[in-house]
């Protein structure tokens, strides 16, 4: 029997949870004092540069570095021959060479490294490395890539993963349907476009045999392993510092520059810096998987969903990275948060020479949500059922089966989300709001729902750890391996620590994160899980620590242990008399040399069931979200403006109020970019969009002024103070809400995103032709 939030808050007398708190390090950010990896400079530093492939697909016949080595000021030129250990990396399979030796599979493939005294010399040297290539035919169409006669990107063929999941009887399902909607959807290749690229520094202390790498990343302990494998180096002697960082969004989860830095530092024995230019970053780094999605959905005329048949073709580019898990998460969420008794879902993760695709906020759910929510919108329109009502009829309740046959046993906030959408003025009064006096600008309102499995899923090690030590001044240092990637984790975890340790003054807690030498391994900062992993661990560690402190107080002050209470940094006896406060206790314990330090570990709860044939599935704890979009479409040009957005987020409890809103607002604009303008265009393996003038992200003039965030709070019992995770789901439903709004405004159904002006324009003209409207005015 779960408690209502209001009851819980009353019981616990919370001081910090859900409050607006100064974000950690924001003073240093606004003053320009914070030093990011790209801001690091050292004495005696060398400049590193990477030679990348000239062709998207080619054999390497010869590599000649002699000319480069002979330039004055060049200290080292490294090729595959200089790799002491494994010449490979990759989170799941190590199928990507650190330095290529026989084949290149995309333009970002690295072939050689140069370290030189100046940037200019390094650039000159790179140009003088002679590589003899034998170009191979380029594999650039994922549908063609899976045919038998396609050129092979990898020896084992172009299918990295093939997953089939089904439930019930799909044919029977379609027979029961009164309406069947069949569509093909396509989604764009989104670039993370974090403002700071993958630049970093590294240095090697020869005496201590310690290698240090400072580079943006999302899991320092995994970076450690990946570096160690390549350098045949003891991982415990590799210090990886991932913070601070100018944005990650999943793009810095996989290795970017870390191993190259380590190699150069190791071989030159000097500090090395690699500066990655924006163009280099766009070409070599991970992208959101572009997907082709074929959906066939069957529904009864009263709106009950009966069948869903889905085919997914995911373009993972030259190397796997997290392509497999992305496909499987997409499959898991492909039917939306709905009850559908008969499903068939088949997906392919396909190798091509189109750059590389990897982790990106949403991780496959963005693509299937776009498809499924458009299907739902189409169904609502055709059956003349209100879009909210249609969803309400089909949304999952706790304990019911998802489209892949697993049950969600944890908290679900969908009902409340729909309630809020229904009563929101933009939705409720949409007929009035849509009225515009501009003849050629049509307004529309669209909605969408989404959900997101948090954590890594079944069968994968997923855990959190924290260490808390008391200081002499009565304050606490909290250490945890999660990384502040800009998403507010440091502040969220600090809030949890403040609450758990019953602190009054927020300056008493100092939080240290993201450093393999200082913090315990707290898992990867991805899958919307940092708050959960580290937050749980911090809460557990705090409880342990307080127990120890109570025991100390009991001994030192001769008070029975179970008569002691703690509130706002003060210990009280059963009569309400103050015994001692943290400050004094800290000093006393310091004198006794007994300042406590505790550790806590826990494993991310996973589902008790497994989905056969789909590793990692299902997930156990889900966040839920919904969006309302009010758009204005210029029907003359096809340009769409997002006027207002509402984001409804069920992430359990809100811990960091400012952080929660910020993630939601940023998510809306990132989702808007995905929906309307962002696409890395690759033709024949060549990048046509390589910089910010051709890869378009929203500016302040594009982002809506009004973005409303409505937290739908529930209490997730397994979460720290009832929290789940929101990092990803905040950007997902807005994209289909926007395209559904475009339909509402113009009856033009968008099946391919980004819905840039050209696509919307031609869709509108199609509609006009169908209406036999030669002259549309």
């Amino acid at each position, binding site marked *: 029997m779960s408690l209502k939030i209001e009851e819980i808050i009353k019981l616990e007398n919370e001081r910090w949870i859900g409050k607006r708190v100064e974000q950690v390090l924001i003073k240093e950010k606004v003053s320009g004092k914070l030093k990011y990896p790209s801001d690091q400079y050292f004495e005696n530093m060398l400049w590193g540069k990477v030679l990348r492939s000239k062709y998207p697909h080619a054999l390497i016949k010869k590599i000649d570095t002699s000319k480069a080595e002979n330039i004055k000021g060049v200290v080292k030129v490294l090729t595959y021959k200089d790799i002491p250990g494994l010449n490979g990396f990759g989170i799941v399979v190590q199928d990507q060479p650190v330095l290529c030796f026989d084949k290149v599979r995309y333009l970002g493939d690295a072939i050689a490294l140069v370290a030189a005294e100046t940037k200019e010399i390094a650039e000159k040297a790179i140009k003088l490395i002679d590589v003899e290539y034998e170009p191979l035919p380029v594999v650039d169409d994922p549908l063609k890539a899976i045919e038998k006669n396609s050129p092979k990107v990898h020896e084992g063929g172009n299918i990295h993963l093939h997953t089939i999941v089904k439930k019930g009887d799909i044919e029977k399902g379609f027979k029961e349907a009164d309406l069947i909607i069949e569509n093909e959807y396509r989604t764009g290749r989104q670039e993370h476009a974090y403002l700071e690229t993958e630049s970093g520094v590294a240095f090697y202390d020869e005496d201590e045999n310690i290698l240090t790498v400072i580079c943006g990343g999302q899991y320092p302990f995994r970076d450690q392993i990946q570096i160690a494998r390549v350098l045949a180096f003891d991982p415990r002697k590799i210090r990886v510092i991932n913070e601070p960082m100018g944005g990650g969004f999943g793009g810095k989860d996989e290795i970017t520059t870390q191993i190259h830095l380590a190699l150069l530092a190791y071989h030159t024995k000097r500090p090395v810096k690699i500066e990655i230019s924006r163009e280099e970053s766009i070409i070599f780094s991970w992208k959101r998987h572009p997907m082709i999605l074929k959906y066939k959905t069957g529904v009864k005329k009263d709106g009950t969903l009966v069948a869903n048949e889905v085919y997914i073709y995911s373009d993972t580019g030259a190397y796997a990275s997290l392509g497999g898990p992305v496909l499987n998460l997409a499959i898991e969420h492909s039917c939306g948060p709905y009850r559908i008794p008969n499903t068939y879902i088949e997906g392919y993760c396909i190798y091509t020479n189109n750059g590389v695709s990897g982790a990106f906020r949403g991780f496959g759910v963005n693509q299937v949500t776009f498809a499924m929510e458009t299907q739902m919108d189409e169904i609502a329109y055709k059956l003349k059922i209100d879009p909210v009502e249609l969803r309400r009829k089909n949304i999952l309740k706790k304990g019911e089966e998802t489209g892949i046959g697993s049950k969600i046993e944890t908290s679900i906030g969908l009902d409340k989300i729909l309630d809020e959408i229904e009563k929101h003025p933009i939705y409720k009064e949409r007929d009035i709001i849509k009225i515009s006096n501009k003849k050629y600008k049509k307004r529309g309102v669209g909605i969408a729902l989404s959900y997101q499995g948090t954590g890594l899923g079944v069968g994968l090690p997923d855990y959190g750890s924290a260490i808390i030590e008391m200081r002499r001044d009565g304050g606490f240092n909290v250490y945890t391996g999660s990384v502040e990637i800009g998403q507010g984790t440091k502040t969220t975890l600090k809030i949890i620590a403040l609450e758990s340790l019953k602190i009054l003054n927020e300056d008493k807690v100092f939080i240290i994160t993201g450093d393999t030498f200082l913090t315990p391994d707290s898992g990867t900062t991805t899958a919307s899980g940092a708050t959960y992993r580290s937050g749980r661990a911090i809460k557990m560690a705090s409880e342990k620590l307080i127990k120890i402190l109570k025991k100390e107080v009991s001994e030192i002050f001769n008070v029975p242990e179970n008569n002691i209470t703690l509130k706002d940094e003060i210990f009280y006896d059963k009569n309400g008399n103050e015994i001692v406060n943290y400050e004094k206790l800290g000093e006393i314990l310091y004198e006794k040399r007994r300042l406590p330090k505790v550790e806590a570990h826990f494993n991310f709860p996973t589902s008790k069931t497994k989905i056969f044939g789909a590793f990692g599935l299902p997930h156990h704890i889900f966040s839920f979200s919904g969006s309302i979009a009010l758009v204005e479409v210029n029907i003359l040009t*096809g340009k769409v403006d997002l006027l207002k957005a509402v984001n409804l987020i069920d992430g359990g409890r809100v811990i960091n109020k400012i952080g929660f809103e910020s993630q939601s607002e940023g998510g809306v604009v990132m989702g808007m970019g995905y929906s309307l303008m962002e696409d890395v265009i690759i033709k024949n393996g060549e990048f046509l*969009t390589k910089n910010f*003038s051709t890869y378009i992200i929203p*500016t302040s003039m*594009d982002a809506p002024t009004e973005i409303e965030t409505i937290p739908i709070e529930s209490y997730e019992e397994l979460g720290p103070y009832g929290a789940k995770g929101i990092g990803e789901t905040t950007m997902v439903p807005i994209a289909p809400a926007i395209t559904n709004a475009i339909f509402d405004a113009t009856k033009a159904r968008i099946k391919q995103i980004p819905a840039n002006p*050209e696509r919307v324009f*031609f869709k509108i003209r199609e509609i006009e032709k169908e209406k036999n409207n030669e*002259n549309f*005015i």
Partner: protein
Amino acid sequence: MMEFEYFKPKNLFKAIDLAENFKINKKFLAGGTDLLVRMKDNLIKEENIIDLKDIDELKGIWEKDDEIEIGPLTTFSEIIESEILNKFSPLLVLASKKVGSPQIRNKGTIGGNICNASPAGDSIPPLFCEEAKLILISKNGKRIVDIENFFIGPGKTIINDNEILYRIVIKKWRDNDIGFFNKLGQRNALSISIASNCVKIRKENGKVLDIKIALGSVSPTVVRAKRIEEEIKNLKNFDEDKLFIISSLVSKEIDPITDVRGTREYRIEVSKYLLFESLVNLLNR
């Protein structure tokens, strides 16, 4: 960044000398918002960069009877803040506001925009509508070129190796002049136009006395839609049906390319609607 010889002549004579001296082996540096990007991309083969920003004669905005003379080194921000231009050439001000971003507008110059000769240069369509004259100067003296004859292709102009753009001359607006600048971009700032048009109309007693239409980003150079101008002058009323039919003639006046920002087909089609939008805005207000 490539290596180069850098010159900063203190006056026009020195600059003319350098131009004469280096001929094609030089690039003029005005704002540099375009040149520096190309230098960083190693697309500039010239070895001599001549910074013109110390030359006073090239900076300024002057009223001369019914004309305005603009120095080529005038930045877009200066155009936007100029009282003279706001009063007497509002179309140029309107277009300048759409250039890049505040930072780019503080540095980019109208002269650079013109000589760079991108068909997407935002200052060019308004200058076409104003029938601007460009004064070029060299050791051989001054020559005046109509802006329509200045461009011969993307990035190509008829300026000689030893010439410097000296002044841009436009006529002042009259009280019965109205204008519209319509830029279609992929987003609302920091945007290079997919297609654009500029329309200037002189109205009297509900009739169009004169109309100038310039189209940007849809041909190797900015072009005037002269056929359409004639049709509109002959219109007795401005029904939207008629305006749309006339706007559709735009496809005969342009020759767009396909690039990352848009296909040729889209540019042809949307130009009709974009022009229609401008005409409706001006004629049916």
